[in-house]
């Protein structure tokens, strides 16, 4: 191998290691987590908002052609919210705009993520996976007060 080639392999490895450190930092310090495998919750058929305490909520979202249930939810600023998402028919998407909450809703399974809203406002949820003819109209809202 020519010397320059060795140098470039070395430098690009270092660069990638730096990227990795960035990712590990995001996971550990910024607490950005990805959904994982859940078997403890069975897929549900209707949407639900459960208030465990003043600042702990659980919301079960059902996605179906072509709406979300519940369609509008109100939660307080700063509450910890457990989002559970499933689908009754085809695959849907679940993206709370302006946040990192970005999930797939897959029939037969339950997806999960935790989120705290630190800013009050009206958040839109969009279905971002093609789910049939009405896909472009499929959305919901979360009011954070």
């Amino acid at each position, binding site marked *: 191998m020519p010397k320059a080639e060795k140098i*470039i392999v070395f430098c690009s490895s270092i660069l990638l290691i730096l*990227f990795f450190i960035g990712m590990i930092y*995001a996971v550990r310090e910024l607490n950005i987590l990805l959904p994982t*495998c*859940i078997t403890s919750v069975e897929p549900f058929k209707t949407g639900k908002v459960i208030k465990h305490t003043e600042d702990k909520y659980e919301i079960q979202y059902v996605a179906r052609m072509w709406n979300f249930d519940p369609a509008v939810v109100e939660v307080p600023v700063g509450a910890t919210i457990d989002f559970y998402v499933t689908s009754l028919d*085809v695959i849907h998407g679940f993206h709370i*705009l302006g946040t*990192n909450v970005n999930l797939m809703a897959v029939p037969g*399974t339950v997806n999960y993520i935790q989120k705290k809203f630190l800013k009050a406002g009206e958040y839109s949820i969009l*279905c971002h996976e093609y789910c049939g003819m009405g896909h472009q109209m499929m959305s919901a809202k979360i009011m954070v007060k």
Partner: protein
Amino acid sequence: MMEKMKIEKSFRRLILIELLFPILLLVLGIYHGFIQVLYRAGVIQSTSFLGLDYYQGLTLHGVVNAIVFTTFFAVAFGHALILFYLKKTPHLLFSWISGGLMVLGTLLASYAILSGKASVLYTFYPPLKAHPLFYIGATLLVIGSWIAFFAWIPLYRSWRKENANQKTPLAIVGIFSTFLVWLMATLPLAYEVLVMLIPWSLGFVPTVNVMLARTLFWFFGHPLVYFWLLPAYIMFYVMLPKVSGGKLYSDFAGRFVFMCFIILSAPVGLHHQFTDPAIRSSWKWFHTVLTFGIAIPSFMTFFTLCASLEYAAKSRGGTGLLRWWTKLPYFNKDNHEQWLFPYFISGLILFSFGGITGLINASYTMNSVIHNTSWVPGHFHTTVGGPVFLSFIAMSLFMVARLLGKEIQFPKLNMWVPYLWMVGVLTFSIGMSVAGIYGVPRRTNLGISYMTSQPDIFRGLGMLWSNMSVLGGGLMSLSMVFFFFVFITTLCSKKKMEGHLYFPTSETYYDENISFVQNFKPWIIIAIVLIVIAYGLPLYDVIQATFYGSAGFTPQSPLPTP
């Protein structure tokens, strides 16, 4: 060895059909690309336009541009490389059967799409259910490509025996890597389609495991993108240095990079499923690590190609640390082989954007910002729509002209095609990407979203950026109009020489004989081991965490199909 070569009539005809047929379909695929940007900017506010529904057209766009065109090209290019570099002719009958199955499969799938019974997009995620002919057509296309590949293997073996003391030509290493990746990709796809989807779409089994099908799809989906990319890499390593007037900087780099793709193409597919349920996040992390591993051969390629270009520029009188960049044949209007340079360089410039946005997509944590937003098509039009597409259309034109003994017509116009495309794609991609960061979704008929009381996203800044993609899409389409014009006038021009096969082939600057990159076997074994590790347990997860199978749905109705 690098002389023009005559090939047998029947085989020539086969290669020509495999090049011309997908180019013809491409007219439709490109057409709907342009229509899509119009919908997405709210210029067309309707569910369909000129008889094609948005999602039907989008299915066509994805299937024709990304699956049909690329697969046909890879097979035709592979045939030609084997003929030219090994001086051996693949089994004639098998090769015709392969081509016939591919054409038949494409026609069946096109029928299903055009009749409106398969608007399921090119990823065909169940439980959206398409007409059985859609799946059967796709299967025939893939099987056809397998047969072509299997017919090359004995030729490679016997060449190796006859030339025991020679290195395999780099182009041959490249095309075999391409098809090994394709084989690894299409086996899980075959399971998904043959075992799960076809019986289900025919009504023999009532339900399908959606997560399993989806995971198998992406087990196919990532190596698929390297199946697109590797033929372009062959051209960049073997032909680009020659047409820029230089030499390939390092032969080892080429071989090593191809081997890396064999081992790392498949065990990375979960990076498309970061936001999915039913897969442990630790497996997602593992696939992230391997995905970043594959960036190393890409960086090496970037370096090797720049070094080769520097050599070319300096032997043309270029000087300085960076000034030599101005000495490359950017505006070469010849019609022999140097006209390939503008196509290749434009593709590479686009790819530098594609590589960086790709690293962002693959970053475990950043992915949730852009997953399934219009950022994603913004990204991959600079990869599959960049180096892959440009090098494939250039090489199609090159091969067709050579095989028919024609000269490229309108070389000046031809020279501007890739630059216009590059500027178009950049404009398009910036628009799509920024809109994506605002949250504008992909795969969505935004023309309709406009008219409803939908989230502000469809009226605010996000849309402004989407409108920018109209400008880009317009330039891309114009560039394609010019390309088709050059293509057709070349086809119809007078024959100027005897039809032949020829590829520009670079000499090598550093030509070493490093033994661990001379054989496929060890790399294939590593690949299999990695795949078993990377997919064994995630597939187990998926099966464990799926509570019930799904009946099928058509896009038209929220009720399951009977």
